[in-house]
């Protein structure tokens, strides 16, 4: 089994790892917004994307997310990318003018490739931002962070702490269930289940032989867990303190200011229709 799962936490001790999860969540949202801002011309779009890219690569470098891992993630999306390319060639984006070739009656526009490129760049940037967040923040911190944002909703009886508890228990038991799945996979393979070949009926039976015991196992597990929670005095409606408290520090405030400045600057540039490429090479274009 390949253990490289998207968004796995990597326990380094970088500046970004030490930031408050609430700040990281806000920053991620702002970066996503700037990635998604719609651009005017192609050149402007590549200029602004370029600025984003520089910032994101810098963040990746600081949080020790390896470019290799990002590309590995992209590689698993290659079918989607090829599909995009084909769609963009057959259904060129609106206002396509630069014909660069022909297949039969079909005009091939340069814009088709630009459009595909644009989507790939956005996809990559989004993936990178998500990876920076998840590789530098434990799932628990993330849960706590999100739960903090839902706190005001408690006034309308939104069970924000129960949900946070449920999510963190689910996260805790994912590895245990994966282990159990692997064990069952091996046990059923030993008794002749061929998950890869064989007729459709065989495959369905094979999957059943995996799913039924897995359900039984998870019920048994949840029984045990319910007893364990109760024995240790957990009361979903009661009040409880938190061992892991979030600490907002000065460096979080500074980072929030920086990110906000970046985003306002970015929006301003977009509004001004800032176009670095046209600025430098007006004649070329």
């Amino acid at each position, binding site marked *: 089994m390949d253990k490289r799962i998207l968004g796995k936490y990597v326990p380094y001790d970088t500046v970004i790892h030490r930031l408050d999860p609430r700040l990281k969540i806000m920053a991620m949202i702002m970066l996503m917004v700037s990635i998604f801002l719609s651009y005017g011309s192609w050149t402007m779009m590549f200029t602004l994307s370029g600025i984003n890219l520089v910032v994101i690569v810098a963040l990746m470098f600081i949080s020790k997310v390896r470019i290799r891992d990002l590309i590995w993630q992209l590689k698993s999306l290659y079918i989607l990318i090829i599909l995009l390319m084909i769609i963009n060639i057959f259904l060129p984006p609106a206002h396509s003018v630069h014909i660069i070739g022909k297949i039969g009656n079909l005009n091939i526009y340069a814009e088709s490739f630009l459009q595909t490129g644009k989507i790939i760049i956005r996809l990559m940037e989004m993936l990178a931002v998500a990876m920076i967040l998840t590789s530098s923040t434990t799932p628990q911190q993330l849960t706590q962070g999100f739960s903090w944002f839902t706190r005001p909703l408690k006034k309308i009886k939104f069970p924000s702490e129960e949900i946070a508890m449920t999510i963190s228990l689910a996260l805790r038991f994912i590895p245990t269930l994966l282990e159990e799945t692997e064990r*069952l996979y091996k046990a059923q393979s*030993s*008794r*002749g289940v061929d998950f890869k070949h064989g007729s459709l009926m065989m495959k369905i039976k094979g999957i059943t*032989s995996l*799913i039924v015991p897995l359900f039984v196992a998870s019920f048994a597990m949840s029984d045990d867990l319910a007893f364990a929670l109760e024995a240790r005095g957990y009361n979903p409606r009661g009040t409880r303190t938190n061992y892991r408290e979030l600490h907002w520090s000065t460096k979080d405030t500074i980072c929030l200011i920086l990110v906000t400045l970046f985003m306002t600057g970015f929006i301003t540039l977009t509004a001004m229709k800032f176009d670095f490429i046209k600025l430098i090479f007006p004649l070329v274009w």
Partner: protein
Amino acid sequence: MQIDFQHVNFSYNLKTIFRVDALKDVNLAIDTNEVTAIVGKTGSGKSTLTQLINKLLTPSDGAVKIDQFINTPKKRAHRKQLQALRSEIGFLFQFPENQLFADTVLKDVEFGIRNFHPKDQDYEKKAKAALKLVGLDESFYERSPFDLSGGEKKRVAIAGVLAYQPKVLILDEPTAGLDEMSKRELMELFKKIHQEGVGIILVTHDMDIVLKYASKVVVMDDGEIKKIGSPQAILQNEVEPYHLATPNVYHFAHQLIAQGKKIDLNRVKDVTTLVEEIKRHG
């Protein structure tokens, strides 16, 4: 059946930062005519070792020869060969009762035969014979496996493996969680199965079972084979360095020897033989 491990290395998550070396240059010959026990603490590599025998795992390096079949990273196994291998090697995981899934006991026991030999028309007869062997009569055939007691479920799971008539049984901690009586009954069942010509490879922590049922012991630690020999020869010496528990008889005999008592450990096997030995020396 002859099983040969030749310079076998195995690592989990090879080529990643999560790499764990589970087996290091293992050489071992297992003759399934004798009951071989593989012992060692959790994580010593004994489970990995057994899973190489029916190619649930492929060595990172080296080869495991199982009669004609060769499990090696250098050669891809054909699907048919792989299924043939697995049908000859019955593998019972720890808590096999957890793998049951069909709506009736009989269907669950037939499952393995129908996977391995889809053209075999005798599957029902074979399944019934297997159920009889493990001591479950026809009143169980149509019952749901989920309504049975823990011990009965275990027997159904064992029947499900015996049904396709494997040449070897690999038993991973078969007696875990059982009381003394169930333990004894189960081990007597395996003894009977062995006498009927099925080879047994036993992975266990229970040294009393090893002493009573195995004819050869393989001691593993840190992914290496540390000792091979007869249960008596191995267990009468200190096995604590390998994180195993010395059986009570030997533990007590050692205390006697330390106090100057003459005891021939080779004559000691259980309480009765220990008392005889004490008596012999006055």
